[in-house]
């Protein structure tokens, strides 16, 4: 009599215990680019295959509160003079083919980057400040002179040209390259699923090159921190466009999707609990060719600085997709300084006065200008064209200046920026590593804008090397004051991205951080290893 309920109970418990073990958890996610060349982040950042970095374990990385967390490294230390860093790797890390992962694989990754083409040379020169980097990338010194040594299998030594107190945060983009595979196959090891090996929490199962869709599986061999909690991750970059992603999400074909401006209110009404916002650490700003008319005149630049009503801009045309930017640094970013931000006021009278001081009262005699914007996808695609039109109308109304807008493909825009083929641009920039030197570096000693402002460069160089963090931040604020006084840029907006995620997703990565933001795949390693379903 009593045995039946017990049997049923036991069966139920047994089923409950076995089912999750048997069921494969698969997450389908949107990717970013439908083209990708190498499944190797350290070969090419911009043209890499979908989420190539997920396959490898970085030295360190960030969690959702932007705390730096050791990954391949167990610990690190800085020498007395501040010039040498020693990274100790964890024991027992291996490649998916069983070969041990060693310090040599990390050193080799950067040696190859410096010598054979890699669109992040600037990063390791400026951000990393690795000794000899510039000379090696320019081809004037041998790769052996780089300040990188594999002391033994588990110890890496990095020597920098000046103290770089933030170097550990730079290593969040330092992934290993399997030297044993490159010795055997050259860079082509990263072109074929059969020859690709991984060192991180995921392995690769398949790669559809026509749309750069990739299937990852949980690694069997990874022993480091942040093990994957899902079995499979299918990433399809075709889902990256919200126009495709949201219908697919509603039809149950993907677990989350990013939203465009028009979709935000619809999605908010349909699934308010599924909405996730993220303030991307990114800034759009106006930059100039400082050498040519009329922007070689500081008063003209100052006039533009005060002629933009960021509040109106972000509450109308950019509602829900951007917030005002008063500094090159976004809110929440280290070194963010409210005193700097407070100066970026909308002041039409002052703007007119500056323009009059420059010799163009009410815009009289001011040449017709053409502002160059870049064809963008993602969040920038929604923001920049609309913003350009707003600025066009505002400059006409307030300063009496006629502005034309020209949108160019990425390559042409960049070519124009670097070659000073135009005199005014709207430029977006998203952070690469979490330190003010990242944003200030884009204008440092040429940077990406060909800006050479000695006063600014001196302050940034000093701040970069300063090991006292309060003093550092103060020096960066001084550097930004130079930018403001000389009107080097006009900070415009910081983007906000919005996504809708399925109620089936769980885990720490699916909920907002202390600032109320959910960075999702912007923090790929954290996100995909802290997600459950």
């Amino acid at each position: 009599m009593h045995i039946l309920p017990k049997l049923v109970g036991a069966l139920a418990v047994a089923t409950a215990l076995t089912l999750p073990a048997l069921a494969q958890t698969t997450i389908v996610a949107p990717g970013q680019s439908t083209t990708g060349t190498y499944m190797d982040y350290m070969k090419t950042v911009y043209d890499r295959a979908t989420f190539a970095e997920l396959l490898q374990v970085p030295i360190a990385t960030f969690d959702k509160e932007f705390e730096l967390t050791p990954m391949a490294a167990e610990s690190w230390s800085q020498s007395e003079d501040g010039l040498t860093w020693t990274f100790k790797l964890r024991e027992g890390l291996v490649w998916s083919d069983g070969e041990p992962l060693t310090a040599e694989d990390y050193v080799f990754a950067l040696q190859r980057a410096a010598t054979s083409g890699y669109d992040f040379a600037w990063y390791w020169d400026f951000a990393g400040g690795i000794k000899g980097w510039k000379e090696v990338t320019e081809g004037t010194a041998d790769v052996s002179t780089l300040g990188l040594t594999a002391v033994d299998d588990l110890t890496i030594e990095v020597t920098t040209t000046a103290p770089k107190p933030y170097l550990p945060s730079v290593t969040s983009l330092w992934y290993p390259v399997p030297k044993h595979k490159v010795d055997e196959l050259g860079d082509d090891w990263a072109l074929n699923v059969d020859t690709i090996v991984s060192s991180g929490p995921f392995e690769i199962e398949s790669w559809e090159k026509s749309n750069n869709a990739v299937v990852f599986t949980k690694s069997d061999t990874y022993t480091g921190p942040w093990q994957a909690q899902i079995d499979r991750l299918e990433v399809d970059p075709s889902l990256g466009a919200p126009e495709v992603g949201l219908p697919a999400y509603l039809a149950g074909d993907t677990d989350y999707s990013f939203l465009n401006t028009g979709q935000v209110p619809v999605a908010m009404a349909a699934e308010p609990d599924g909405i996730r916002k993220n303030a991307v650490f990114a800034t759009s700003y106006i930059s100039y060719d400082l050498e040519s008319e009329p922007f070689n005149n500081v008063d003209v630049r100052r006039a533009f600085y005060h002629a933009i009503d960021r509040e109106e801009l972000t509450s109308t045309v950019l509602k829900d997709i951007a917030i005002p930017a008063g500094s090159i640094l976004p809110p929440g970013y280290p070194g963010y300084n409210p005193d700097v931000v407070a100066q970026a006021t909308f002041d039409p009278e002052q703007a007119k006065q500056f323009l009059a001081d420059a010799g163009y009262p009410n815009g009289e005699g001011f040449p017709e200008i053409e502002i160059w914007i870049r064809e963008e996808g993602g969040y920038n695609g929604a923001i920049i064209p609309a913003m350009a039109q707003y600025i066009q109308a505002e400059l006409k109304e307030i300063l009496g200046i006629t502005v034309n807008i020209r949108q160019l493909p990425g390559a042409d825009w960049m070519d124009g920026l670097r070659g000073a083929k135009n005199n005014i641009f709207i430029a977006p920039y998203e952070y690469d590593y979490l330190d003010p030197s990242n944003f200030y570096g884009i204008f440092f000693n040429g940077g990406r804008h060909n800006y050479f402002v000695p006063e600014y460069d001196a302050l940034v160089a000093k701040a970069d090397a300063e090991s006292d963090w309060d003093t550092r931040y103060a020096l960066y604020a001084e550097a930004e004051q130079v930018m403001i006084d000389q009107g080097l840029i006009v900070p415009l907006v910081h983007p906000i991205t919005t996504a809708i995620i399925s109620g089936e997703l769980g885990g720490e990565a699916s909920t907002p951080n202390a600032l109320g933001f959910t960075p999702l795949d912007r923090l790929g390693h954290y996100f995909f290893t802290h997600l459950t379903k």
Partner: protein
Amino acid sequence: MLGFILRRLVSVAFTFIAVSIIIFLMMHAVPGGPFDANDMPVSEAVRAKMMAQLGLDQPLYVQYLRYMWGVMQFDFGVPYQSPGESVLQLLSRAWVPSLVLGGLGVLIGAPLGILLGMAAALNRNSWIDYLASAVATIGLTIPVFVTSMLLILVFAVWLKWLPASGWPHPERWILPIIAYAAIPVATYARYTRSAMLDTMSRPFVTVLRAKGLSEQRIVFQHVLRNSAIPLVTVFLPMFIGTATGSIFVEAMFRIPGLGAYFVSSIETRDYPLEMALMLMITFMYCIAYLLSDIVYALINPRIRVGGAE
């Protein structure tokens, strides 16, 4: 006939060479190169090395001759955006989904359009005729990405009858095929209707009627055949256009096809792939028009290819 074909083939060769030169020059006239697209500049030394590896440091005419020499041996180079395979390998893998979906779209859409056009012509000014013109107008005027989005919204999101997008499983092909078929249905309905009405007003149809032939025989044996010329003219070019993939349809339905490469090869300055795609399209259109001309002669003996021989 043989002489005609040979002469046409020679002119195809000249067209091919002319197009290749024009495309090559235009392609290189666009500023920037394959390594300029990114936020972070590649160092000059590295860039020079990569350009030399790809032969891009050579004078243009050398690059052109080298490429065309390869083409003559069916070597179209290696695509910059997909190293590790040849252009031909890329085309043969990416073309499959486009050919299947676009091809089926035309092969299903064209006969449907012909039937619709016939029904309209035979029932002129009736509700069938009006319905056919409505379908044709809608099919031609609504952009394909809008049609695609509506199809997904209705059949995948609201009714949940079909999956929204994706490639490998045939149930995911249905919606894109419908999207592709919209234009052939519309085009064929219009062409068939007007061609048939035109033929039916000719004196010979009256003669046939007077002879006492059944309406069915008149329509199927005489009218349709005599109305076929415009239908043949549109078929092959339409097939080529559709079966090489639409970037919109493929993006909306997440199809790993050829469509996007037409744009990405230009954007990324992927010279070998861009050239190959253009040459392929040129070649196919040349052959398509040649075939159309031959078919004309077969279906209408009054047309003799090769002029007054």
